[in-house]
């Protein structure tokens, strides 16, 4: 029941971070397996949605961290590989601005990209985001506005 209710939210959160469907699938499954294992420790004074999202965001960041470690000895990070995947996506074919936006997002540090995705695509409030990420609202606002600035610079200079 939990999976059916939240699977799409978790999947799309992961997909926007890891880009590749198979990777997003792995992350999504891991999230629900961890939720299942930890459900006994869930404090009912917290919202289930917030708790589950916290697990999902941590799993996305851990996945990206592991991915970066695999690229540790290579020149550059995994951004090049992810940018290629975006280039190959049929949904961006011909839509240069969207392509630039997605590539701009890849230039952001993972945590900042996560904040951006939560705010821009999911319209999550800073209050909610603070509970999910364990970060102050002020820091999140600064991170988001800085991300927007960097994205606009990338799009206009690329």
């Amino acid at each position: 029941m939990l999976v059916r209710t939240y699977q799409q939210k978790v999947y799309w959160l992961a997909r926007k971070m890891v880009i590749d469907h198979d990777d997003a699938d792995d992350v999504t499954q891991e999230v629900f397996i961890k939720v299942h294992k930890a459900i006994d420790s869930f404090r009912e004074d917290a919202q289930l949605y917030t708790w589950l999202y916290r697990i999902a965001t941590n799993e996305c960041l851990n996945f990206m961290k592991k991915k970066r470690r695999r690229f540790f000895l290579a020149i550059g990070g995994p951004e090049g590989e992810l940018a290629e995947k975006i280039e190959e996506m049929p949904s961006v074919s011909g839509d240069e601005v969207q392509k630039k936006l997605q590539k701009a997002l890849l230039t952001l540090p993972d945590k900042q990209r996560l904040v951006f995705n939560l705010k821009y695509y999911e319209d999550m409030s800073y209050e909610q985001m603070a509970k999910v990420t364990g970060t102050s609202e002020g820091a999140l606002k600064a991170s988001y506005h800085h991300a927007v600035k960097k994205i606009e610079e990338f799009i206009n200079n690329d």
Partner: protein
Amino acid sequence: MIRLDDIPKKSLFEAPEGYFDKLPERIRYRMANPEPTPAWGTLALKYALPVLALAAASIFVLTNRGNLSAEEIIAGIESEQLVAYLAETDVNTDDLLEAAPLDATEAESLQLDALGDMFLDDTVVDAFGTMEEFGTVR
């Protein structure tokens, strides 16, 4: 100049057909059939060997060069071996920065784009004002 608000908000990703119909069952299967945990021997190979190699190298250097500081011992190890060891461990940049005894000059010389990888604490934002006051930020 294109602003973010000028760009239509759309989701570019697509999930395979039927993916969400099958996902709950796949997850249920995984929960019912957990992956076997690695035997101790496999874990030892994965984590203990790099540590043993480092320890053996340290002992070798110590016995052959007399009393050495930690920095001197590390300096005697090939960079590729250190990189390979770090790649196998869970040590990350934040851990290294936390452990590194940086003085004020060294801390300043680190690129400010490292801050982009961290959530900014309210105190940092308050202390440094607007984002424009940061130096080169990634």
